[in-house]
């Protein structure tokens, strides 16, 4: 690697110490890029056996059978997308509400403690959410929430004869419970990022709206949101990226059944939960392990896409 042509410090002779200094820092920067590229390469090479065996059909294969050694990724992909998107639908309105409250209507005295509380919620390790979901939320769901949902939404017509929305045995664990846990976990991230975005809106814009007689809500929907729409979507994608890759909490509450779900409350699996759950039985060099690495590759590519969109949308805000 060569040293850049324009030294940051005046035009003068470059001392050997400067060269070493710059080289080592460039090397550290290169490590970051190398790590990302090697994750992609290692996952792909490790999963090559699976891609060779099943071809691209691996992605939409619906069968998962370790006995016959036939593996399809669609059940895990479906579980991942359904739980993550459901979680986003639950967490986003609440996270946005918290952010709006924190930046606009919250009394000054409450602002810091509430902000700290939200950040502590983000710091709780995912395994703790998993335990909480398994021992507290799942029994509650099976006892109260699921029977109620089933009887209340019985009128929604099923999709074909394979997907029955809220009609399922109330066993507590399943996609809906996993989505709820994920929602709790991404809520603080969405709230914190949205708060930062709202805070970055120029006060002048808001003052203009108030001067025209707008209420707080009208100033938000009419002026602030249009001004920072891109960054707000960035916060959503950041939350989505987190939800897609979350592992331990999901393993505890999703039921770990690798098959196409027949309802929103059915036991299912996500890519991350399949990788973590099936890893102990996957011997090195077998198709079993290659399938997990191939799943990892798919998850990494999807997360990369989602997070890249998030960062690009949030970039304007960060650069300012």
């Amino acid at each position, binding site marked *: 690697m060569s040293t850049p042509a324009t030294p940051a410090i005046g035009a003068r002779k470059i001392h050997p110490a400067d060269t070493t200094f710059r080289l080592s820092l460039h090397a550290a920067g290169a490590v970051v890029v190398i790590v990302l590229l090697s994750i992609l390469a290692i996952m792909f090479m490790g999963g090559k056996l699976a891609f060779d065996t099943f071809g691209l059909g691996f992605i939409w294969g619906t069968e998962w059978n370790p006995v016959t050694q036939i593996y399809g990724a669609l059940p895990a992909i479906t579980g991942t997308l359904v739980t993550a998107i459901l979680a986003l639908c639950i967490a986003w309105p609440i996270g946005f509400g918290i952010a709006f409250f924190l930046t606009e209507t919250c009394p000054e005295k409450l602002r810091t403690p509430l902000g700290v509380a939200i950040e502590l919620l983000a710091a709780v390790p995912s395994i703790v959410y998993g335990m909480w979901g398994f021992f507290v939320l799942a029994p509650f769901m099976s006892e109260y929430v699921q029977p109620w949902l089933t009887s209340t939404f019985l009128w929604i017509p099923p999709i074909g004869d394979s997907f029955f929305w809220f009609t399922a045995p109330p066993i507590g664990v399943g996609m809906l419970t996993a989505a709820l846990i994920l929602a709790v976990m991404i809520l603080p991230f969405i709230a914190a990022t949205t708060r930062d975005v709202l805070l970055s809106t120029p006060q002048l814009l808001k003052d203009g709206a108030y001067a025209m007689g707008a209420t707080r809500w009208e100033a938000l929907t009419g002026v602030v949101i249009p001004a920072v729409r891109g960054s707000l979507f960035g916060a959503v994608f950041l939350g989505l990226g*987190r939800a897609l890759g979350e592992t331990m909490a999901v393993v505890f509450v999703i039921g770990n059944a690798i098959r196409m779900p027949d309802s929103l409350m059915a036991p299912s699996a996500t890519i991350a939960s399949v990788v973590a759950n099936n890893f102990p039985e996957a011997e090195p060099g077998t198709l079993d392990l290659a399938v997990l690495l191939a799943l990892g590759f798919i998850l*990494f590519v999807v997360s990369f896409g989602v997070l890249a969109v998030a960062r690009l949308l949030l970039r304007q805000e960060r650069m300012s």
Partner: protein
Amino acid sequence: MKQLTAATRARYFRRQLVNRVMGGLCIAAAGVGLILLALILWMLFSNGLAGLTLDTFTKPMSQPGSGGGLANAIIGSLLQVGVGAMIGAPLGMMVGVYLSEVGKESRFASIVRFVNDILLSAPSVLIGLFVYQIAVLPFGGFSGVAGSIALALIAMPIVARTTEDILRLVPQAYRDGAIALGSRENEVVGKVVLPAAFGGILTGILLAIARIAGETAPLLFTSLGNDIWSTDMTQPMASLPMAIVRYSNTPYPEWVALAWTGAMLITVGVLVLNIASRFSYAAVAGKQGG
């Protein structure tokens, strides 16, 4: 005074109503967040304190019915997190210094910054799987070192991001002053910029430690866990998160109780680190007259 028509008054009333209702919903949302935090902490402490005894800290994991604690898991966690932070933090600091002091807005720096932000939220389970492929399979088995490498890879981008952010807050005049005195680039960074930002960088490192202390998924693929005393980092090694996983899915009440105790210990540690990092940041920001 102009008389308001009925229609105007109705519209005014409706606008106020919408504002009040939406504002109320936002307060409710904040309430939901607080209630969730309270619920989780309450469950954690009510279940965790019940299983907390001196044995938790002095005895290793053991068969159900014969007592036992979490001592080996606590030591294992401390070792792996410690080594992970010792690898990840300096590397992350160097990346942060590169982005803020050398690379700045150059093309390569923009790529590094972008990739670092991606790694910051990349699924940790994949980091584990990656390290399994490069540091477990080729070296013939699960090891504490592999666990530390995985944790280091998770800590690095966090430290890099916070270091860059805090270095950007150091006034340019500091650098100009050092340059005017004839300092070389490494002296400007090492003797002026880094010391000025020390507290902020420490904040980033503490946050990174808090994050990796609770990580479970990467350890599943790397250090695996171990029921017996072991401080040999080349062997499979116990950790608190893995002990919780092992104990919570069992029919033995005493194991489940220990899992809750372990979860409480981790959470307390993580939350204390978070609050400590906040104070160290506040101290620096205050000193710099921010």
